[in-house]
């Protein structure tokens, strides 16, 4: 089905509840859904689409630990070992003095790390080119379901009918 690669079937829904209920129905019928686009987050949509749970929390923890270690290393090395300095009558290495900066760098590393991870894993940011716009109304008042025809074994007609049955008001074909 080479002629179908890059071709998408786009179902447009009017209601978030309709699309939320359409997803498990279509998946049960054997349709492989690429993604649902919505003006606002729909509770339960991730589970309905069968998306694996995000691992960004683990990444955040790792970035945080990195930031914590970097901050402590930096301060202990510069203030305590390389050029020992006494500030406010405290020992050159005095951990309580370092806590605020350690906290700040932990947060900074976590925030930057998570944003970078998010951009990379979503194919956003400089150097990424493929941004399909299935239907611009998904940023306004419609809920848009995209189905990659190249990855589905069902025929276009079968899928369109299933989409219509599940409550889609329009079904369009998009080619990228």
């Amino acid at each position, binding site marked *: 089905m080479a002629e179908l690669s890059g071709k998408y079937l786009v179902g447009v829904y009017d209601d978030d509840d309709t699309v*939320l*209920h359409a997803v498990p129905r279509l998946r049960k019928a054997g349709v492989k859904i690429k993604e649902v686009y919505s003006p606002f987050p729909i*509770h*339960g949509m*991730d*589970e*309905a689409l069968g998306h694996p749970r995000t691992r960004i*929390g683990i990444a955040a*923890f790792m970035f945080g630990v990195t930031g914590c270690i970097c901050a402590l290393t930096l301060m202990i090395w510069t203030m305590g070992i390389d050029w020992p300095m006494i500030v*406010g*009558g*405290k020992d050159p290495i005095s951990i*309580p*003095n370092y*806590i*605020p900066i350690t906290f700040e760098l932990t947060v900074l590393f976590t925030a930057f790390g998570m944003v970078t991870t998010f951009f990379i894993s979503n194919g956003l940011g400089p150097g990424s080119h493929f941004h399909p716009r299935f239907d611009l109304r998904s940023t306004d008042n419609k809920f848009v379901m995209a189905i990659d025809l190249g990855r589905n074994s069902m025929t276009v007609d079968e899928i369109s009918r299933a989409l219509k049955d599940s409550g889609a008001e329009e079904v369009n074909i998009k080619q990228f």
Partner: protein
Amino acid sequence: MASAHSIPSIEERFEFTSGAKRNLLIGGGVGLALIALGAYLAATGGGGHEAAAHGAEHAAAAVGHGAAEHGASGHGAVSAAAGSHHEKSWVARIWANLWVNGVYFTGMSVIGMFFISYNYLAQAGWSAVFKRVPEALPAFLPFTGVVLLLTFIFGGHDLFHWTHEGLYEVGGPEYDRIIAGKRGFLNTPFFLIRLVIYFVVWYGLWRVIRNLSLQEDEIGGTEFYEKSIRFGTAFLVVFGVTSSTSAWDFVMSIDTHWFSTMFGWYTLASWHVAGLAVITLTVVMLRERGYLRAVNSSHMRDLGKFVFAFSIFWTYVWFAQFLLIYYANLPEETIYFIERFRGYGGFYKAPFFITLFLNFFFPFLVLMTRDAKYTHSILKVACWSVIIGHYMDFYTNIMPGSVGAGAELGALEWGFFLLFLCAFAYTIASQLEKANLIPRNHPMLEESLHHDIA
């Protein structure tokens, strides 16, 4: 997925079984036995810490402590007469234990009221389903109120340095200009008036809200809810002031010379996270016994987040107070931490750092992941860590200034803690029995039953 839940019945009646009653009574009995054992050991001088540490330690402490804190006489003279000090110290230890537990359990009880009040004010929906649990906590206030009142009347002289009359005699041997300057606030009649006012107002407002809630259960409608918002807000206004002043009175005035502008916040943070741990633990235990089936994993996760977030908040306030004093290095302020680090032979150093571990590092790391926040076993471990950790927190705040070198962490301390804990649990369970476990006519109940944070 919200739509996939089938909502369990909201008609639930908690039964305080005779088995549970027996267990709590046995727990209280064990507590009493430990107290008797501890008191016997202390009175006959069996305490290792005190016996071993007495001479050397007091001398060491007196260098940093005696001079600045108590003047030339005061404790220095008492420690010289080791025999008489010893007799006094074990009685003082009992008063101090009553005071530590009284203050701590007062806090946990009143936080139940604090929790429902800010939930009313915010018109929060999610918490409605387990609202009976925080609502049950303040029922313990009369008990701790009486404990604190009697302890102050009979043992206040041992606990509060500022109650010593000699401090105020101008030109007398014990005259203390700084403490005399605080007399307008720290004097026995005003202290007693404040103590009574706190408990009457806190308990009174709780009774109003509790009655409205019970009537709402029978009659329904939004009228009780609207009224509860108003009384809850009134409580928050009152508590905004009294949480700080009671922290000064109950805890900070023990170290009479010392003061910290963070202290009200600090004590409130401590009470709050401990109260949230009690609420979470009670919900978990009720669920394990087959109650509160309508509480779903989203509620549990939010409760877990509450405990997680407020253990960080406590640490933040704790550290902010510590760091300012550490940086500024003013002798009259650092004495507070020096007493806990090096004073009395370094006895308080262990509780000081155990507090930090149990209240921050442990719950922080254990409750960090998403799944941990609704896993019953992990929540239980984290909540117990916080509950015991904040007991240690109040212990390290109250003991050095009241009993100092005479303090221990033995049978007497754990006996009192166990006794209070069992009494608290007994009160909560009796309150839960009085009404339907789920507030069936709460206007926000429907929202709460469908609470879903995905």
